[in-house]
């Protein structure tokens, strides 16, 4: 029943046209709080599912929690932005395989490995000044790491990020003109 909190919050929000502004500001805050609590509860379900899906056969489930980042649209994911190593697991809910370009806001350069362990093309794209000055943004990430993920139908792939320890020659060229 853990997803009930989110489905109920969504139901309340949709029933009351919560995105339209036809409520007092205090009520808008309440909708936002309900959605936030629902998302937190939903994250527990995601972790329960991945604890079954991620372990290799015969091994215990990993104790590493899977976290959500809700502010990647303003290039903010404080949990991972300057970590030495982290993974990004992408779940494809559609019944077709998809290719999807994905952005991870970071403060440093990383090598990205696909699920087979092969390093893949990833490029650091600078975060715009307009994004940096958005009120409430606290991230110090100056770049988005852009890579292309290939995902199976109704399934997932995990990409492994490892910080580059020394100046490695950039394989990809990013050209910027003003």
């Amino acid at each position, binding site marked *: 029943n853990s997803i009930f909190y989110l489905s109920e919050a969504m139901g309340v929000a949709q029933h009351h046209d919560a*995105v*339209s*502004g*036809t*409520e*007092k*500001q205090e009520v808008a*805050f309440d909708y936002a709080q309900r959605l936030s609590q629902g998302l937190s509860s939903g994250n527990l379900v*995601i972790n329960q599912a991945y604890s079954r899906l991620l372990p290799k056969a015969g091994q215990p489930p990993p104790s*590493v*929690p*899977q*976290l959500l*980042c809700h502010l*990647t*649209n*303003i290039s903010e*994911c404080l*949990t*991972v932005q300057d*970590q030495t*190593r*982290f*993974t*990004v*697991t*992408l*779940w*494809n*809910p*559609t019944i077709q395989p*998809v290719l*999807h*370009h*994905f952005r991870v806001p970071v403060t440093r350069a990383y090598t990205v*490995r696909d699920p087979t*362990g092969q390093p893949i*093309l*990833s*490029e650091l*794209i*600078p975060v*715009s000044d*307009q*994004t940096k000055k*958005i*009120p409430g943004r606290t991230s110090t990430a100056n770049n988005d790491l*852009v*890579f*292309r993920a290939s*995902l199976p139908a109704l399934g997932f792939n995990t990409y*492994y990020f*490892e910080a580059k320890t020394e100046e490695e020659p950039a394989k*990809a*060229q*990013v*050209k*910027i*003109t*003003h």
Partner: protein
Amino acid sequence: NEECILQNQNVRVEIDAQGNLGHIINLKKSLAVEFHNQGFYWYQSFPGNNSRSEFQASGAYIFRPVSADPQPVSTTRTITCIKAENVQSARIVFNDWASQEIILYDEAEYAEVEWTVGPIPVNDNIGKEIILRYDTDVNSGNKFYTDANGREVLERTRDYRPTWNYTVVETVAGNYYPVNSRIWIKDQDKQFTILTDRSEGGSSIHNGSVELMLHRRMLYDDALGVGEALNEAAFGQGLVVRGRHVLFLESPAASAAYHRIGAQRMYMHPVATYALIPQSYPSYS
């Protein structure tokens, strides 16, 4: 003063050195659409007097611009052109509170526009309603198409209702419709479709034009029950909003196959979760 040309295997987007979107070209189908004055505009909200309908203010329930001619948010803009292998983009800044990034990913069959609007300034005591307008050479006449809550797409005819004799009073608001997921215009050769990442209001006020309402900030209540102006000043300065439009240029016959798949990609996008891993890669693998 070079143009900023974004091009992949399928799509070419031409933006001039002043930051004006010029053309989007479907390279495989040899279709091109020309744009004029694409960008952000604002309508002045009618202040009203909070009582009767003819004096009703523009507010949460009511879109009621003072003038039918929206004003551009700026007369100049700056552009930054970024080219990499995975992605190419043009960041176009109109002013302190309105900017867009036109994005083309490798192998994509569409262009994206990521728009950022806000906080809308209201220190001149004028409520403002911000649109992003695409004026094209598509000969769409007075017809455009919007979806109805993601279900049937309906043909809309400007200044017309199919079931009664319509008297035009509100020339702009009277032609606005909900855009829950998509809006398009078309002529015999080409169809220009926009997918939205959220419900917006939209219309085609002129032949070849599509506009979508992105953000509103008003100083008066429209007296329909909220009792507060749609101001969102709780944090002192109004909200910043950011969203995306996905643009398809296709033939009318082929468009549905593209915008339906594109919509599913957008609304059922992959769910990302992050985990901090203590092991180095050899140990992890």
